[in-house]
């Protein structure tokens, strides 16, 4: 069985996996970081989005072995102790979540979007969320959250 090593949320981790083990399985089952969710089996919903070497990735569409040596951030790695990340804070402030299932992937995508565009327009936010499905919120408050989060991250 292959062994993989990577850095997850700043911590060096390693484990024995099968070649077919997906990154999301490694994160959820081996590392017991269950904040990253699985909402589909066709790479369409974005519930599983994490950052790999600073870029967004659907962890359901990546093998654990492909992340060998990588720097991975999951939703659990965003907050600084008890202080929420500005994007998390913005979601809470604007009621950007209901059931919370899409939320981790949504927030990880939003942070990436804001990293690349400090002051996104509503249109740019809506397009940037194209790969993340939310069934609860109708996106209205998510869009508001992302705009506020981006502003507060930039500041």
């Amino acid at each position, binding site marked *: 069985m292959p062994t993989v090593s990577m850095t997850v949320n700043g911590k060096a981790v390693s484990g024995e996996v099968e070649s077919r083990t997906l990154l999301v399985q490694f994160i959820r089952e081996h590392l017991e970081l269950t904040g990253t969710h699985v909402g589909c089996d066709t790479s*369409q919903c974005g519930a599983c989005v994490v950052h790999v070497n600073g870029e967004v990735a659907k962890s359901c569409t990546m093998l654990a072995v492909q992340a060998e040596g990588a720097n991975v951030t999951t939703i*659990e790695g965003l907050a600084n102790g008890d202080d929420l990340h500005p994007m998390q804070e913005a979601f809470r402030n604007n009621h950007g979540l*209901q*059931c919370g299932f899409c939320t981790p992937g949504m927030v990880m995508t939003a942070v990436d979007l804001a990293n690349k565009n400090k002051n996104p327009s509503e249109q740019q936010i809506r397009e940037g969320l194209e790969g993340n499905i*939310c069934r609860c*919120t109708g*996106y209205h*408050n998510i869009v508001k959250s992302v705009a506020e989060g981006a502003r507060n991250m930039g500041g």
Partner: protein
Amino acid sequence: MPDGATNTGIGASVKRVEDKRFLTGKGNYVDDINRPGQTYAYILRSPHAHAKINSIDTSAAKSASGVVAVFTGEDMQVGSIPCGWQVDSADGTPMREPGHPALAQGKVRYVGDQVAIVIADTLDQAKDAAEKINVDYTPLKAVVDLRDALADTTLVHDEIETNISYDWAIGDKAEVDAVFDGAAHVTKMDIVNNRLIPNAMEPRAAIGDFDRASGEYTLYTTTQNPHVIRLLMGAFVLSIPEHKLRVVAPDVGGGFGSKIFHYAEEAITTWAAGQIARPIKWTAERSESFITDAHGRDHLSHAELALDANGKFLGLRVETAANMGAYLSTFASAVPTYLHATLLAGVYTTPVIYCNIKAVFTNTVPVDAYRGAGRPEASYLLERLVDRAARETGLDQVDIRRRNFIPSDAFPYQTPVALAYDSGDYEATLSSALKLAEVDGFAARKAEAAGRGKKRGLGYSTYIEACGVAPSAVAGALGARAGLYESAEVRVHPTGSVTVFTGSHSHGQGHETTFAQLVSDQLGIPIENVDISHGDTGKVQFGMGTYGSRSLAVGGEAIVKATDKIISKAKKIAAHVLEASAEDIEFAGGNFTVAGTDRSMAFGEVALTAYVPHNFPHEELEPGLDETAFYDPANFTFPGGCHICEVEVDPDTGTVEVVSFTAVDDVGRVINPMIVEGQVHGGVAQGIGQALLEGCSYDEDGQLLTGSFMDYAMPRAHNLPSFKVATEETLCAHNSLGVKGCGEVGAIGSPPAVINAVVDALADMGVTDVAMPATPQTVWRAIQTAKS
């Protein structure tokens, strides 16, 4: 927050208590739970829509690597999965209710029907082994289309000799027919309410667990109502007494109705856990959800509206065939009847109504309640018909509605279809929506769009719904096999903090916040001191769960009642300590005061005294401060309102863009405006999804063509605008909070507004109807047909 940053009471947009755990990845959903010694299940499903099972050979699978057990229907001889509502046909015969086995018994009736469960140490091993099972099927002809099913040439269930479960009616047909004979104008339409796939983002999951020592079963499941599952599964399917069965619904990632029902996988994993005495986890893959979660809607109707020369509605006549799928799911029989036909008066004074419903079996996934359940079908039918009637008679869309509104001074108002509305003001929501939608400027916007080659349209929907499900007496009279009250326990701890146990369940609605607001407001204690506990039959004594927008109107009322009991007991305690009579104790701002004096006790002091008494007169006053209440509503609640949609259609491609959507709803008193708006946004998005994007499609052999997000179009952020949302309040007349319910209004009011807008945009091209979902191709074709 309207009333200042510290306000956490009724009417304040308190930030949600639950958010921090969800935002930091600490939510606890069923698939996040792992039990010691856990195994994994894969469920082998039928690839055929209809087939006879001649034999199942599991021997190779049983000896495959890592496999713990394989079971088929032959092994699992248990009770049938029950339906919760009994509906009688018009001729008095009870509905036909064929057996609904958890694992197929000799026959499969839809693609996805459960055939075997494979349990192994890992999921991949279970899947690998499932490929080694050899099922010998004789495929049978499938009946998929509703119209074909009505012909009864191919039967889904041979034993009942027809595909019709019931043929039900409401209203006096002869009386209605007579009205039509004398009408100045009759508007007629064939209306399809498209079949939808709910797709809560968290796929269903279940973990069955069995404790060998105590003989107790535990089921962790993605349900909206753990107690109902315990009742249905324990009593009817597995015959496990309730004290030996605990059902836990932890964080649940959205439901929208689809997680109300008792599903086969719950029974299979629980039963099999007992067989192997190890925990078993099953989690649906999304493709599996598509073919096993109960679908929604799927009505085929013919509707006729009779009007007099002044545009007043004289009568309504409706014939509906409602698809049940292959088996009757938990609520299925109630949806087209009690939740649809009884809503056909809408907000109008139509004096006579007749509606006939045929519930029809097909070889498709069972169909049951999905956000709105029956009421979106009713509002769509009615509001399309009213829109058409206005176009045919030359009346203005707003005018025809105003002429027929039930006036605000006519409440309580008895409709001809069983329901009695308690309160409402339809003119208020309409006029507020007209302003918010800036209808006055529409003509200019339409002209500007025309300059860009685009067609603009405006569509209205003035709708009503019945929620707060349900007054048990009414529900019982209508065939519900259980009362639909709610229960709550308010437990005050010695230091004055409070745990509220509610039978209602939150899967996105924010109960942990709204319910805490209620109790904090009522007891005058900080909201941080109130914890809401739900979703565990081991903790909460009983409950009917969350659906039919009932959480606040029914569950919240039960909490208020239990809190009232706490206050009256606390008064007795304060009276005892303060040496006064209980009648003289006043309670305000968290303090118990002897009227007209400055002698008082804070809530916390009373709580402590309740648990550390030395000299209570025990015959009159027991220690402790813990109260339970059951609340059974006197009536349904009737939220209503006006939705206005503005669209822009690209006539070259048929693309529809929703440029603006306005919803003004009357949901009764608003406890947390932020949460109410969020519920409306979500409902409207699902309604726009139904109107423009989502259409479930089967081929003639019963294979689902829209079986993944690759083919079933879910609304995404860029499909939707930001919404304009507001509320107008008339209070519910029969509950103390005055609340009505907000969970479904968005999905009920919006679809007709969208389609009416599309039709309006294309009216000058001769288009009179566009089917849902109004995809670009559908719209383009409607234009081509109108042109030729």
